[in-house]
């Protein structure tokens, strides 16, 4: 591994370096994926552009809608007071990533750009209808996270472009989120399957007004289970209806068999975890109301 290292001190300078190096360079956030890929020889780069001295990329603004800078660490997500209530799934996703050493430096922006199909926080962000903002020489553009993720390790980022931040709306009342992960051990584990869910009930608290379900490790990207979402919206969330949503999500998943689990097993786990995550959302809405 051998490259030139650059540390821009402004966003404009970072964008400039990105545009100049194009596919010969990459931006460095926490480095928990990038440095390993470089060392393995999977990435041959002439330039690495460290982002830690660019001001304003590590902020969390949770007054009203939520804005996360790309350099917000998993540790910061885990500990932020704004995420202990309706947005609890963000904490649940962040706190199972690696060990403390990785969560102390690994960033939410880096996790998205790394585009692992088994990413843990990304499914949670998908359930929040998150948009991502990218900066390049042509200016800034904002696009839905759903659609930004193209394939394993692939995103809609253009060469030289930089992910600067994420944004999603605050959740209305009668809403909750939940994140569940299946692995062979409790820590330091790449997900066999992970599931995030968000449920918003109608004003009467009886029917599902808005449902989001997202899956990890069962498709080339983390992805939403739209048929399952649609089947629940407008319906009373009875145990049977939640189980039916689990079955639909399992039918929508496209898992592979690999060293961690078989495709068949993953499909079964999706069904169980989706039902469970939705049930947990419902319990949380009821707990918050009581």
């Amino acid at each position, binding site marked *: 591994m051998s490259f030139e290292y650059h540390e821009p001190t402004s966003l404009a300078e970072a964008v400039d370096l990105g545009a100049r190096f194009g596919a010969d360079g990459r931006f460095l956030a926490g480095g928990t994926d990038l440095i*390993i890929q470089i060392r393995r020889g999977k990435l041959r780069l002439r330039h690495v552009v460290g982002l830690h001295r660019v001001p304003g990329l590590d902020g969390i603004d949770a007054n009203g809608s939520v804005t996360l800078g790309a350099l917000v660490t998993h540790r910061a997500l885990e500990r932020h007071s704004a995420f202990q209530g309706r947005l609890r799934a963000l904490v649940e996703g962040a706190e199972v990533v690696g*060990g403390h050493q990785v969560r102390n430096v690994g960033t939410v922006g880096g996790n998205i750009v790394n585009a692992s199909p088994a990413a843990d926080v990304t499914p949670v962000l998908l359930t929040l209808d998150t948009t991502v903002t990218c900066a390049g020489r042509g200016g800034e553009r904002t696009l839905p996270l759903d659609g930004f993720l193209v394939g394993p390790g692939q995103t809609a980022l253009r060469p030289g472009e930089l992910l600067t931040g994420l944004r999603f709306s605050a959740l209305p009342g009668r809403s909750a989120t939940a994140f569940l992960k299946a692995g062979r051990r409790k820590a330091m584990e790449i997900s066999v399957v992970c599931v995030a869910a968000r449920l918003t009930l109608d004003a009467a608290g009886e029917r599902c007004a808005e449902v989001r379900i997202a899956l990890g490790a069962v498709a080339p990207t983390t992805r939403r289970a739209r048929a399952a979402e649609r089947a629940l919206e407008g319906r009373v969330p009875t145990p049977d209806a939640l189980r039916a949503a689990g079955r639909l999500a399992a039918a929508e998943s496209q898992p592979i068999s690999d060293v961690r689990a078989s495709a068949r097993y993953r499909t079964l786990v999706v069904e169980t975890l989706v039902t469970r995550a939705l049930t947990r959302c419902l319990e949380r809405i009821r707990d918050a109301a009581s």
Partner: protein
Amino acid sequence: MTKVALTLTINGQRHEVLTEPHRTLLDVLRADLGLTGTKENCLEAECGVCTVLLDGRAVNACILLAAQCQGRQVLTIEGLGRDGQLHPLQQAFIDHGAVQCGYCIPAMILSAKAYLDEHPAPTEAHVREALAGNLCRCTGYQKIADAVLAAARELAHRR
């Protein structure tokens, strides 16, 4: 390859280092500064034997570029004891027989220190979670967890 001049503060001492930009903090600690208490193994942030504290937080030195540590505080196992006295964590590891081959221990102790600095009264489950990023192939972890809990009590007693 252009070298970069870095000022690193390691165990409270300033070091001027001239190094290639791709070299990690682990490379510089072990090869340039002779601080071999920080160990090298998987080089992929899985095993945790390279753990040091960066501004008080546990990090894997194997995936951290030395250049990223410019102007920041690094603590390695060599800097943990004071005035020839072992840190209570070090003493507790000895007292509880928590060390066998020893390879994982400097990192184990630093992870425990970072955790206890923020959580002075942990449960055993908390300690085990705090050390999840540090693998040990010898001890089975029980004596390590016992030692960290004992050190937490000793540190609380001294406060």
